[in-house]
C-alpha cells in the first residue's frame, strides 16, 4: 500500500466576509507535496497564495474567514475542522512556518533564546537547560556565527538576514516534516536572499522535509524548487514540474508572467546632449546628537563623496542594498535633506539657494516615490493632486486651462482622464504610480528622481511602468536618476550605473560594462545573487 502523501490539499475554498459582502479568496485549490519535495506556490499580490498557506494550519481569522469546502490532509489525517488541541500539536511541531517579515513575526520584547525555547518547551516538554542546548544547536545549524553570544540578543539587535535565520531556527526546532515558507526572502536584500535560499535547500536535503514555498518571484522558483503551482485570483491555473512549466507554459497567465521580466534597454543618448545635473564630493551626513544641549558628537555618513553627472535623455541608475544611502542621495540632490557639495543644475549651483529662491527651479526637478500608497494625498482627488504643482508655480491662466493640462498628462501616462474626479484609494498600485508620474510630468521637468518607482509593484505591472518611463524619456528628452535595488530593472532603464554600499560608491560606469565585467568583488556578489540566486562565497557579504 502506497504511503499517504505528506500534504494533500483537495478542492480548498476560502471565503471572507467583509461588511455585507462575501469575497471568494480561494476557490477549488488542490495540490500535494511528497517528502523531500519543494512545491512553489507562485502568484501576484491578491492571488490568494498566502491565504492558502495559512489555511493549512487553520491560522486564518475565523469566523471572518470560512471554508465552504475542501480537505487538507497531513499524512492522511484531516486537518479541516480538526480540534484546536490537535492543530496545536501539529503547528510549530510537525509543520513549521516562516513568515515574510521577520521583524514583526518575532516578539520584540523577548530574547532569541526565549523565543526558540518556548517552541521546545511547549511541544517537547524540555527543561530550560536542555532547551538552551537545543536552541544553541539550531542557531549554529542556520549559520548564525558566535551563536552562544547571540542567545541573549533581542530581535532589533539582529540584521534582517539574521532575523530570518532565527525564524528558520524556530520553525525547525521540532524537526518538522513540512516547512511552509511564506515569501521568506521578500523583505531582505538580494545577497541575503541568496544565502537564505541556499540554507533552506541544504536543510531540506539534510532532513528530507517537504517544503511549500510561497513567492511572487518566478526567477527564484526556477533556481530553487521542484514543482510549481501558479495561482491567479484564488485559483491554481497551472501545475507541473519547474522544468516543464518554464519550458512550455500552457496557461496564458503563466506565459504572461514568464514574459514579464524587464527587458530591453533605454534609447541611446544623443551626442552633445546638455548636461542637466552634476555633482562631486557630494555628502549627506546625518548628525548624531548627545547630551542636554544636543551637540553633535558624530555623523551617520549616509552618502559620502559621490560624484556623477547626468545629461538630457540619460538615466543614471543608482543601485544598492537597503542602507546603502541611495535614497538619501536622491533626497539630497533635490535639497529635501541637508547635504554638502555642489549640485549643479543646468549650469547653476543650487546648493546655496534659499527655499524661496529654489521654488522656481523645483518645477524642473521632480521626484516619484517608491510607495504608491503613501505618495498620494488620500484626501485629494487625482485631478487636484496633479494640478497642485501647476497652481504652486502659477502655470496656466485659470482652472480650466490647468484642467486641460491635467487631462493631457493623465492621457500621456495611459490613464483615462475621467479618473481625475476619483480618489487615490480607488486605484491599483500600478495606476497610482502612473498618477505620481503624471504629477511630476505635468510640470514639464528636466530631471526626475525615481526612487524605487517599481519596487512595490508586481512584475507584470513593473514592465508596463518601465516601458512608460522609457517612452516619456524619449518623448521629452528627460534626465532620470533611477534609484533601485533591483538589478534587472536597472539594466532595463539605465545608461550609467552607480553601485553604492554603506554610503560610498563601489563602482560606477556605463551599464553594459558594469553588469558584464564588474571589477569589484561586491558588484560580482550582487550580480550573482540577483540574476542566478547564488550565494556569495568570497566573504564580501556579511551575514
Amino acid at each position, binding site marked *: 500500500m502506497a504511503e499517504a502523501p505528506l500534504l494533500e490539499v483537495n478542492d480548498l475554498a476560502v471565503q471572507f466576509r467583509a*461588511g455585507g459582502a462575501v*469575497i471568494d479568496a480561494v476557490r477549488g485549490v488542490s495540490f500535494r507535496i511528497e517528502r523531500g519535495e519543494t512545491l512553489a506556490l507562485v502568484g501576484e499580490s491578491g492571488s490568494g497564495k*498566502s*491565504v492558502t498557506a495559512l489555511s493549512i494550519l487553520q491560522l486564518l481569522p475565523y469566523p471572518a474567514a470560512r471554508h465552504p469546502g475542501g480537505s487538507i490532509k497531513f499524512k492522511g489525517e484531516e486537518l479541516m475542522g480538526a480540534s484546536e488541541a490537535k492543530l496545536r500539536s501539529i503547528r510549530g511541531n510537525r509543520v513549521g512556518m516562516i513568515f515574510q517579515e521577520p521583524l514583526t513575526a518575532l516578539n520584540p520584547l523577548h530574547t532569541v533564546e526565549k523565543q526558540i525555547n518556548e517552541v521546545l518547551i511547549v511541544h517537547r516538554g524540555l527543561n530550560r537547560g536542555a532547551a538552551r542546548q537545543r536552541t544553541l544547536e539550531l542557531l549554529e545549524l542556520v549559520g548564525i556565527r558566535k551563536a552562544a553570544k547571540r542567545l541573549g540578543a533581542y530581535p532589533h539587535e539582529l540584521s534582517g538576514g539574521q532575523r530570518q535565520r532565527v525564524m528558520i531556527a524556530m520553525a525547525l526546532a521540532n524537526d518538522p516534516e513540512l516547512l511552509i515558507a511564506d515569501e521568506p526572502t521578500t523583505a531582505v536584500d538580494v545577497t541575503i536572499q541568496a544565502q537564505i535560499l541556499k540554507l533552506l535547500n541544504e536543510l531540506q536535503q539534510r532532513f528530507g522535509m517537504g517544503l511549500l514555498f510561497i513567492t511572487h518571484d518566478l526567477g527564484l522558483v526556477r533556481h530553487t524548487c521542484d514543482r510549481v503551482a501558479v495561482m491567479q485570483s484564488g485559483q491554481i491555473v497551472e501545475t507541473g514540474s519547474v522544468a516543464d512549466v518554464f519550458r512550455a507554459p500552457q496557461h496564458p497567465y503563466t506565459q504572461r508572467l514568464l514574459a514579464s521580466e524587464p527587458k530591453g534597454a533605454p534609447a541611446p543618448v544623443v551626442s552633445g546632449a546638455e548636461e542637466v545635473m552634476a555633482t562631486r564630493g557630494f555628502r549627506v551626513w546625518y548628525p548624531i546628537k548627545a547630551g542636554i544641549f544636543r551637540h553633535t558628537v558624530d555623523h551617520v555618513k549616509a552618502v559620502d563623496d559621490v560624484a556623477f553627472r547626468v545629461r538630457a535623455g540619460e538615466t543614471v541608475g543608482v543601485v544598492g542594498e537597503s542602507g546603502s544611502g541611495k535614497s538619501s542621495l536622491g533626497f539630497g540632490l533635490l535639497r*529635501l535633506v541637508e547635504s554638502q557639495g555642489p549640485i549643479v543644475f543646468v549650469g547653476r549651483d543650487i546648493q546655496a539657494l534659499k527655499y524661496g529662491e*529654489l521654488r522656481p527651479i523645483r518645477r524642473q526637478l521632480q521626484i516619484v*516615490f517608491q510607495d504608491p500608497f503613501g505618495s498620494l494625498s488620500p484626501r485629494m482627488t487625482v485631478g487636484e493632486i496633479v494640478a497642485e504643482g501647476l497652481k504652486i508655480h502659477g502655470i496656466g491662466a485659470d482652472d480650466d486651462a490647468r484642467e486641460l493640462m491635467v487631462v493631457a498628462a493623465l492621457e500621456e501616462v495611459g490613464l483615462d482622464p475621467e479618473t481625475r474626479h476619483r480618489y487615490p484609494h*480607488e486605484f491599483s498600485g500600478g495606476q497610482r504610480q502612473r498618477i505620481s508620474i503624471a504629477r511630476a510630468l505635468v510640470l514639464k521637468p528636466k530631471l526626475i528622481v525615481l526612487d524605487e518607482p517599481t519596487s512595490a509593484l508586481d512584475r507584470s505591472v513593473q514592465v508596463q511602468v518601465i516601458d512608460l518611463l522609457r517612452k516619456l524619456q524619449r518623448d521629452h528628452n528627460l534626465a532620470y536618476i533611477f534609484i533601485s535595488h533591483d538589478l534587472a530593472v536597472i539594466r532595463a532603464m539605465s545608461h550609467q550605473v552607480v553601485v553604492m554600499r554603506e554610503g560610498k560608491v563601489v563602482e560606477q560606469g556605463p551599464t553594459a560594462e558594469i553588469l558584464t565585467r564588474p571589477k569589484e568583488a561586491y558588484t560580482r556578489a550582487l550580480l550573482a545573487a540577483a540574476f542566478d540566486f547564488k550565494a556569495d562565497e568570497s566573504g564580501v557579504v556579511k551575514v
Partner: protein
Amino acid sequence: MKPRSPNDHKFLWWRVRPITARRLANFRAHKRGYWSLWLFLFLFTFTLFAELIANDRPLLVWYDGGLYAPVLRDYSEQTFGGDLPTPAEYDKTLQEQIGKKGWMIWPLIPYSYKSPVKNLPKPAPTPPSWQNWLGTDYQARDVLARVIYGFRISVLFGLVLTILSSIVGVAAGAVQGYFGGRVDLYFQRFMEIWDSVPVLYLLIILSAFIQPDFWWLLGIMLLFSWMGLVGVVRAEFLRARNFDYVRAARAMGASSPAIMFRHILPNALVATISFMPFITSGSIGALTALDYLGFGLPPGSASLGELAKQGKEFATIAPWLGITAFVIVAIMLSLLVFIGEAVRDAFDPRKSAISSAPAAEPQPALPTAAAAPASGAIT
C-alpha cells in the same frame, strides 16, 4: 465644468466622499449617539430662542390700533396709557390697561430668568406648581425660566470655548509637529510649565480685582484649555511630515503653510473632531463648577452652577432646586458624551471595516484590488 464621479454619495444637499458617507452611516448606526445628537440639537435650538419662550413681557401687544413687540424693544409706560416715561413693566395694572383697548400674546412661560415672580402664595422658595412648573428659587425667580437660559449660556460657552481652543490648539500642535526640532523642544517645555498653573487659584485671585463675565471667563479658560488638543495634533504632524506625499509636495515647491493646511491637517482633523464633544462637555462642567463655587458668571446670571449651589443651601426646605440642577446638568453632559462616543466610532477605521454599510463600500477600480483586503489582512 461639474465634477462627476461614478460613486456619488449624498448627505442632505452636499456631495460627500465615500469615506465620509461611510462615517455618516457609522454615526447613524450608533443609535444612542444619533438620537442624542437630535435631542441635543432640539434642546439647543429651542433654548436659543429663550426670550420668546420664557419672558416677563408679552410677545405681541395690540393696543389702540397699534402693534407692539415688547420682546424686541422697550416701550415706555406712556405708550400704553400709563403716567410715567419709564420702560413699561407688564404687571397686573398695565395688563388690565392694555386689556381695555386691545390684547396681548404671552410667551409659554411668562417669567424671565432675572425678575422675581410677584404675588407668590408663600415666601420663596416655593415648590413646583401650575404657575411655576419647577418652583421658584430663594429670590422668587422661576426655576424653569432660569434653567432654559442657563442651558443656553452653558452650551454657548462650551461651544465657543471648544471652537476657540481647537483653533489655538491645532495651530500650536501643527507648528510644533511640523517644524519639530528646537521649536518643538522649547514649546513643549513651555507647555509643561503653563499646564501646571492652577487655574482655579488664578480665577480666585482675579475675581478679587475684576468682576468676571462671560467673555472674561472664556478668555481665562481659553488660556489653558487649548493644550488638550496639542498632543494629538502634534503627534499627527510629526508622523505625517515624513510621508511621501508631503515630501512630494515639498519637492514641488509648496510652501510650509500650504503643506500644513492642505496635506497634513486633514489627517489631524479626525483626531480633533472626535475630541471636540468631550472638550465641550469638559468646558460646560468647568463653568458649572466655577458658578457653584461663586467664581463664575456675575450674580443674577442664569447659571446652572448657581442653581446647584442653592440646591445645596436649601437642600432640606427646597429639594426641587438641587434635583433640577442635577438632572439638567446630567442630561446635558450625558448627551454630549453619547454624541462624542458616536463621533469617535464613526471615525474609527476598524469599526468602519466591520460594520455593515453597503452603500458606503468603496468600489475598487480593479478586480485585483477586491481580493486585496482579504490577503492584506493577514500578510
